[in-house]
């Protein structure tokens, strides 16, 4: 058969010349496109870099805390005058006076000079009695002895020592007198005033003093909520997706459901907060600020994400596997649970982890249901009031004291680190399981 010439009566061989002329243009367009791509990524990386830089530069100081190393004389007459080591007495004794006396002697101040003692007291954290009480309760036999204890310095001292307070300001503005300044410099030279790792940031609850404030309660609250989301959203979401994908008849009704689920994934999170407020708190009467309510609201938010990713994972399983299973005589349920679902698990896992990571960072709906509580003690159950990590960051960001600035950034760093870990875990899981199949 003769080969008929193609476009516009070209002879074979002529087209090569035409193509040759156009090739330069085509490659130039591709080069331009690559440049656009690189430019876009560079801009994104630049912004990301700036974000991390500002977070880290503001927040790294939050991980250390200025403390006094004091030799505290545990005066029996103050702590336990009756000598019976009664719990109540030990809990309510005035430990701060012991701290003040210890600091005074360390600084060389006479305990009878009242104005000077007041200034000495200002150098200590307002919660200093908690630390000494902890030591005494742990070992009541120490009463009567002199023991070295690290106690937190006040928030203002901490700010000064971290260089965040301008030393050249007049004393009334600085809120640290020149005498106190002299003491502080001398003490840091001698080593009794030092910066130590701030474990309090991780284990303490909320506090109005920045030096004793921590994310402990927020972490527990977030943990409870993640567990609730895991326990509720994953089974419900996977079951719904399996039903919609494998069993539901294809009609207008199921189409409408699918459209609605896709839309729910895009609904602003604060609307879920309003929903939670109306249903869980007002209608069902669940306690405000409880992580149970927060978990339920986040479950509703994460459900559409899990359903959508599970359906995609199920669709990706090749039909040849289903046919093989059916051909051997497996029922529909057996085909799904023994063959399709196991192959879809990597996709489901990835979707779950990404959904959980999203839920972890949600703030707006939690604000609506009242998880902005000031909670000092660890929540004992999901029904007790608590708060969440992003909400804690929000509350600190709106606090007045200078010490909270670094803590906001520090807590934000911790949250970002956790989210990065979770997403990394999801990526590793996906890579590992994709290879096997």
């Amino acid at each position, binding site marked *: 058969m003769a080969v008929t010439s193609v476009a516009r009566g070209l002879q074979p061989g002529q087209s090569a010349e035409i193509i040759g002329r156009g090739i330069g243009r085509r490659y130039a367009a591709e080069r331009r496109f690559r440049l656009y791509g690189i430019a876009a990524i560079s801009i994104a990386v630049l912004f990301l870099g700036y974000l991390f830089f500002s977070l880290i530069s503001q927040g790294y100081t939050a991980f250390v805390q200025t403390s006094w190393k004091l030799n505290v004389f545990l005066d029996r007459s103050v702590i336990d005058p009756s000598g019976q080591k009664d719990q109540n007495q030990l809990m309510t004794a005035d430990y701060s006076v012991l701290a003040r006396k210890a600091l005074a002697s360390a600084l060389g101040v006479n305990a009878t000079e009242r104005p000077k003692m007041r200034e000495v007291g200002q150098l200590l954290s307002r919660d200093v009695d908690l630390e000494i009480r902890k030591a005494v309760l742990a070992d009541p036999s120490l009463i009567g002895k002199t023991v070295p204890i690290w106690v937190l310095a006040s928030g203002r001292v901490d700010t000064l020592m971290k260089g965040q307070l301008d030393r050249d300001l007049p004393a009334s503005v600085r809120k640290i007198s020149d005498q106190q300044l002299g003491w502080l410099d001398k003490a840091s030279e001698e080593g009794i005033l030092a910066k130590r790792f701030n474990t309090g940031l991780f284990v303490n609850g909320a506090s109005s003093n920045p030096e004793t404030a921590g994310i402990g309660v927020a972490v527990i609250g977030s943990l409870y909520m993640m567990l609730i989301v895991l326990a509720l959203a994953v089974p419900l979401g996977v079951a719904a997706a399996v039903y919609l994908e494998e069993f539901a008849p294809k009609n207008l009704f199921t189409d409408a459901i699918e459209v609605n689920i896709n839309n729910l994934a895009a609904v602003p999170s604060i609307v879920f907060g309003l929903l939670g407020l109306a249903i869980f708190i007002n209608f069902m009467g669940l306690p405000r600020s409880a992580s149970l309510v927060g978990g339920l609201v986040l479950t509703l938010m994460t459900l559409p994400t899990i359903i959508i990713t599970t359906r995609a994972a199920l669709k990706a399983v090749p039909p040849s596997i289903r046919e093989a299973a059916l051909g*051997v005589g497996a029922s529909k349920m057996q085909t799904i649970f023994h063959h399709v679902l196991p*192959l879809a698990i990597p996709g489901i896992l990835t979707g779950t982890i990404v959904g959980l990571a999203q839920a972890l960072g949600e703030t707006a709906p939690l604000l609506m249901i009242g998880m902005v509580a000031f909670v000092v003690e660890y929540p004992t159950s999901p029904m007790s009031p608590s708060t969440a990590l992003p909400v804690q960051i929000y509350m600190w960001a709106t606090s007045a004291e200078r010490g909270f600035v670094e803590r906001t950034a520090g807590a934000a760093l911790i949250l970002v680190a956790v989210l990065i870990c979770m997403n990394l875990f999801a990526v590793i899981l996906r890579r590992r399981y994709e290879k096997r199949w």
Partner: protein
Amino acid sequence: MLKMPDTDLGANAQAKHATKVAASGVNVYYGDKQALQNVSVNIPDRAVMAFIGPSGCGKSTFLRCINRMNDTITSAKITGKILIDDQDIYDKSLDVVQLRARVGMVFQKPNPFPKSIFENVAYGPRIHGLVHSKADLEEVVHASLEKAGLLKEVKDRLDDPGTGLSGGQQQRLCIARAIAVNPEVILMDEPCSALDPIATARIEELIDELRQNYCIIIVTHSMQQAARVSQRTAFFHLGTLVEEGDTTEIFTNPKDKRTQDYITGRFG
């Protein structure tokens, strides 16, 4: 020249080998399009029947009717009767899961489960409750692999993934998987089309051995394969069953002109 099969099916074919699958007046519609028109054929037991014909003629569609795999396609509608051992398989009271245990299928592209070789073969007997102990299961798996001619090659690596075998081995694994549930009929949809000639030859040998115990129906694009392997042949064209009969007769003395044209290579 086509090599004639060593067939013991002559004029007394039907007497020796009773009809296993009897189809009458089968029509298949995919939505509005009719894929099969009024197909009627009797398929004998303990023999190989080949369905031949050009692409898109409906032979695979008809094959899939026999184990009701077309049920999985929502737009498919089937009318007519297909009897296996005088039992209508499209009867409402018939359980399709049980049917598929009696009628096994081997697909064009080997599709072992992404599990171990042992698990691939063991899955069927296990879900149907055919075995009661682990020892029984092992015996069934070994016997199936032996019958499929695969045991010697894999017997010391039964826990290796089934997907790690070569193409020909995978197809034999699929055959072993189909045999393990003790079917009566084995349907094969172009089982060798994805394999090289040597693997093909081994599978054809296997089919020849298997036909002594099972009713085998094979769809094939290759006339030579049909001639080598089958005792009876049916020629399909554009959704109708044009002619069927003993393989020797079809290939040496076809009655219909369309069959003649196809065999001599005029089309297809």
